[in-house]
Structure formats: C-alpha cells, structure tokens
C-alpha cells in the first residue's frame, strides 16, 4: 500500500515538524455542505466556529471550506486539512459519514467529529441535536394558538430527522388540542426559497393558521406575514426580524458550547470517542424568545415544558403512544429509546398521509 505508507510518512513527518508548534496551537478544520451565507444550517455551524475562535483566541487556528459536495470532494477536502496539520476536523453534514470514516482510517492521529451520523471509530465521534425537543414546545404553542385547528408543516425530504420533528410537534399539539390536524408538504429539495414560499402559501390557502417549517429560509415567514393572522416559528436561526408576528418563537441550532468543549478536549489531550445527542438541557437546542403574540398562560406552559425537557423530568416521546397503523409503540409512561428515534420512519397515530418512500 504505497499510498497509505506515503500518507502515514507524511503525517508522521508533519507531526514531528509541527509537534513543537502544535503544543500551543490547535488547528481545527470545518467542512461545510452549504455556503456560510445560507442563513441556516451552515451559517449556524460557522457561528460555532467563530465562537471557538473567540473563545480560544491565539491558541486555536480554524480553517473551513464551504459548499463541499458529499462524496469524493468531501474526502479530498478532509484529507487536505489533515495533511495541512489539522488536529480536529468537524464534518457537518450527514452525507459526509463514509468519507469521514475513510479519511479517519488514514489519519489515526487526527480527531474527527461527524454531525448527524451514526458511524464512530477510535478517532471519530458523532454529534447531533435533539431538535425534536424544540418541536415539542412548538407543537404545544401551535396547538394552543390555532383557531382553524389546521397546522401546516413544510418538510424537506422524508428522513428520520424530519419525521421525528413532525411526530413530536403533532403529539404535543394534539395533547392540548384534540381536534388539531396536520397538513404536510414535502418540498423535495434542501434549498429552494421560492418553493418554500409556494408551499407556505398553499398551506395557508388551505386553512392552516400555523406554519411549522423544517427548511431554512425565511420565505414561509414572509408568506405568513402577508397573509396576516398566521403564526410561524424560526428554524435553524432565530429569524427575529419577523417577531413578534408571525414568528412567535424559534428553534436555534447552537453548536458553540459543543465545539468549544471538544476543541478544549483535543488541546488538553483528553479527547475520546463520543456519541453525543444533546437537547435543550446542555444548550445545543435553544428556544428563541416567545413573543408577546402568545398569551401569557400559553407562554408559561411552554416555558414549563421547556424546563421539564431540559432537566430530563419529561421525555418528548412518552407513552402511551401508538403508531399510525394503530399498533402499539410505547406503553403508558414508557419513553422512546434513542435507537428507534434515530431511525424513525413511521408516523404516530392520528397523522394522516403516508411517508414518501
């Protein structure tokens, strides 16, 4: 294996050459799937990177490459960062999973952190956020606030992450409002603001007065504002420019605490493989300020729910719950295990329509 030996020699050489320097300066790489100006997913990861720079100052150097396609391009970018002496590399898209594992094999001394995946190795950790906890709070507010009892939901693709969010929101909306109904529209694209605008308009025209979105643009917010009397929630970032109406609250991805902690661990030499799935409690999922458009009592209940989710006294998926087909899923008081949640590919009872396969 000429290639591998070459690479190893190179890394060893680098390790020797930069060893002295690396003592006081940790180099951290970030691989992004979108542009840092996407205002959503990548934008928030980049905010985490900037927080790392701010926190550590001169002790850390960060590098990033944006809009890296999943596949061989991602593999090359990661390899390049490792060759250039990165100590820790964050790969921030599900599709980077296999490339991350491939590159990690070639660079045993470099630590890798892969977002939203499930494959770990000695030098590969995975991390993800329990956004569904935030969805529970949204569902509660939505169920209380809707007058038409119709809640619109815009999804990107039917992947477990999105389905989990729909279920969580539905369960908590139904709990406070048994007549509530969900209308789900799949955009079938990760990014197309104009299509999101259309989807929101369609849902509003069909009677929805609450719009939940699992897409990153503010298009649905604008559509709701134009329609009036429709409420929305910010997604990925706060979207505070649409507060207090239509945006009444939001789910914010906050990667900064985790990134700072992991960089610290590498600098201290205490890094070890972890499988992190954090929610509201550790601050990875933030609930944006609930605006005054929400009645005080609803706001209080929502904050109580948020607190219960944060301290672990309540789990967003607590039985009794049935699956859409009527079969039993969770018994009374039972909570869902992470394995089922991670790969969730079914709706809970009461949701209509089929998950596209």
């Amino acid at each position, binding site marked *: 294996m*000429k290639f591998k030996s070459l*690479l190893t020699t190179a890394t060893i050489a680098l390790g020797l050459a930069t060893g002295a320097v690396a003592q006081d300066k940790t180099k951290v790489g970030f691989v992004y799937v979108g542009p840092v100006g996407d205002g959503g997913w990548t934008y928030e990861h980049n905010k985490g990177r900037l927080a790392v720079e701010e926190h550590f100052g001169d002790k850390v150097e960060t590098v*990033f490459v944006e809009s*890296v396609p999943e*596949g061989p391009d991602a593999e*090359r970018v990661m390899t390049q960062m490792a*060759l250039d002496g990165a100590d820790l590399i964050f790969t921030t898209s599900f599709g980077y999973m296999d490339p991350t594992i491939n590159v990690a094999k070639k660079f045993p001394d470099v630590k890798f952190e892969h977002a939203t995946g499930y494959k770990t190795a000695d030098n590969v950790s995975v991390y993800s956020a329990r956004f569904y906890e935030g969805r529970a709070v949204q569902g509660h507010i939505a169920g209380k606030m809707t007058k038409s009892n119709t809640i619109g939901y815009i999804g990107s693709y*039917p*992947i477990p992450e999105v389905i989990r969010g729909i279920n969580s929101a539905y369960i908590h909306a139904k709990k406070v409002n048994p007549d509530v109904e969900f209308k789900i529209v799949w955009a079938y694209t990760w990014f197309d603001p104009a299509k999101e605008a259309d989807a929101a308009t369609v849902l509003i025209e069909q009677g929805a007065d609450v719009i939940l979105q699992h897409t990153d643009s503010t298009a649905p917010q604008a559509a709701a504002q134009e329609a009036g009397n429709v409420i929305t929630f910010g997604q990925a970032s706060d979207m505070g420019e649409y507060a207090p109406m239509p945006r009444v609250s939001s789910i914010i991805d906050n990667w900064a605490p985790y990134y700072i902690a992991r960089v610290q661990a590498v600098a201290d030499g205490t890094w070890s493989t972890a499988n992190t799935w954090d929610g509201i409690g550790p601050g990875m999922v933030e609930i944006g300020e609930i605006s005054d458009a929400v009645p005080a009592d609803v706001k209080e209940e929502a904050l109580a729910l948020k607190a219960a989710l944060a301290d672990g006294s309540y789990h967003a998926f607590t039985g009794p719950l049935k699956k859409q087909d009527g079969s039993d899923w969770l018994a009374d008081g039972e909570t869902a295990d992470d394995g089922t949640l991670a790969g969730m590919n079914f709706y809970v009872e009461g949701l209509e329509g089929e998950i596209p*396969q």
Partner: protein
Amino acid sequence: MIVLEKRPQPSKAWSYATPLVAVIATMIFGGILFALLGKNPVEAIGTIFWEPLFGEFAFYYRPQLLVKGAPLVLIAIGLSLGFRAGIWNIGAEGQYIMGAIFGAGAGLAFYPLDAWYIFPIMVLAGAFGGWLWAMIPAFLKVRFGTNEILVSLMLVYVAEQFLASVSLGLLKNPEGFGFPGSRNLQSYESAHNAELIAGSGMHWGVVAAFIAVIFSYVLLNRHMLGFHIRLTGEAPRAAKFAGVNPARLILFCLGISGALAGLAGMFEVTGPSGQVSIDFNVGYGFTAIIVAFLGRLHPVGILLAGGLMALTYIGGEIAQSQLGLPAAAIQVFQGMLLFFLLAFDLLTNYRIRAARSEVA
C-alpha cells in the same frame, strides 16, 4: 480604427499560445480580485495553480486530478460529438444520474454475492441507463420534431427527483438505520470500482475517459460517421446531399453521449463516491458542457480542458482552507479564467489590423 480580419486558416501558433495568454491574464485579474479581498495575490494564485501539481502534498493531489477530471472528460467527449453535429444535449447531468442508479442498482441486486461478472454487468447497466435517458429526447426529436434542448434539460430535474426517491426507498441501505442512501459499494468488493494501483487515482472511469478520447479522435478523423457528424454541423445542406440520415445521426449522437454520461455516473458511484444518495450529483454534466467548448470540441483539447477545470477545483479548495478565501471568490476566478480562454481564442481565427480607410 482597429478591425478584425479572418485568417484564411486558424493560426497554429496562436492556438497553442492563447491558453497561456489567457491563464496569465486570469492570474493578473484574479490577483487583483484576491488583493481586493485582502489576501496576498501571489500566494493565492500560487496555491491554486502550484500547490496541487508541485506542492508538498502533490503526491496526493495529482491522482485527485484524475479522479476529478475523468467524469468531466468522459461526459464532454460524448457531448462534443453531438455539439459538432448541432445536436444539443444539455441534459448530461440527468444521464449521469440515471447511469449511476442503473449501475449501482444492478450491483446491489446481486448483494452479497461475490462473482467476477458483477462489475461488468454494472458497467453495461450504467451505460444503458444513460443511453435510455438520452433516448427520450432523441426519440421525441426524431418522431415528433420536439426540441432536444428543452427535453434533455427537463429530464435532469426528473432524474434528480428519481434519485431522491430511490435513495429514500428502493435502494435505501437496509442496515442504514432508516437514513437515506444506498449501501456503500466501496465495501462490496465485487461491485467496487477500486483504484487499479493504490494511490494512483486510476480507476476504471479514468481508463474509460482515456479510451473515449482516443475513440472519439479516431471516429472524427478516420471514420465516415465522424465525417458525417462534422459535415452536418458545418454544412447541413451539403450533408443532406451527401446522404447523411439525420434521424440516425440524432439517435447516434444523443445515444453515445448518454451512454458515456451514464458510464461516468456509474464509475463515480461505484468508486470515488461509493453510494447512491440524494445529493450524489454535483454538476459534472453541466460543467462538462464548458469543458467541451473550452476544448474546442476537439478530443485532445477536451482532455486538457478537463484537467484544467479539475486543477482549479482542487487548487480552489486548498486556497479556501489555507487562505480563508470564500468559495464564491474561487467561482469568480473560474469564471474569469473561462472568459479569458474564450476571448483570447479570437487570436487563433482572426488577425487584428489597423483598418484601411476604404473599409469604413
């Protein structure tokens, strides 16, 4: 007043010199751009052009040039045949996707069987997938006179939806915990398009790209069909008198470009990429159109143009991570390079002269 005068024959000397002039011009203007963005222009240009070829880690980047360039060249060769004959297949991206789906699908159907014949079947399936997708615009054009530009482009979007659908359904990895995407073919040996020599970047797709270049060169220069293709593009009326069958030519050109795009997709999905996923396609089919024209629709030119594009991609990534240049700046830089290459081509075919008074 300066005028252009068409050369009786394209200048040989200029046809070699213009790419060089263009690259130098790009370096100057690109340097200004990078300087405006607050970066050291010399360092930035050096990183993009020098680092991948002769830098410290060139042993890794040089093979990557093959990996990145091969699909571009393979697709562009197919497209160039049609473009020469005035047949506009701009939907290679869709054919690339279908080739990948068919190729990977054929292999996954055998999973976990180990046999030597699986990979060849996948190659055929991949070519077939691309060919089939290109046959839709070809058939519609021959039968109903429907414009192939529109049909082939629309089919790209259809193929993308189909790709999403199979990633979430039919080809989804049953052991993937419900996540989208197929099994990784890199870990299924019979279906894996591995590097022929480890670390060389050479996989079957690269071999296919080189074969395609030679095949296309021979076809265009030594074969009647190649003559018909050139004649149809240059003088459609003369082609008619020469007995060229336009329907057959449309079917051939679209078919071959579809099959090559399908092959490119198949080699990519079974090798460097590894799996069918929602975002498998990254725009090779569109970039290949640029490569085809940049290479002046000539097989050797396409080979060089593909290499140059691959170089700017790889160098651009290095510049992003080492110098913190935004990806957008790299895109602008690539755009400039194309502008200059296209603009300076003028010197090959025209002479610049001071005008004589009677012309005005």
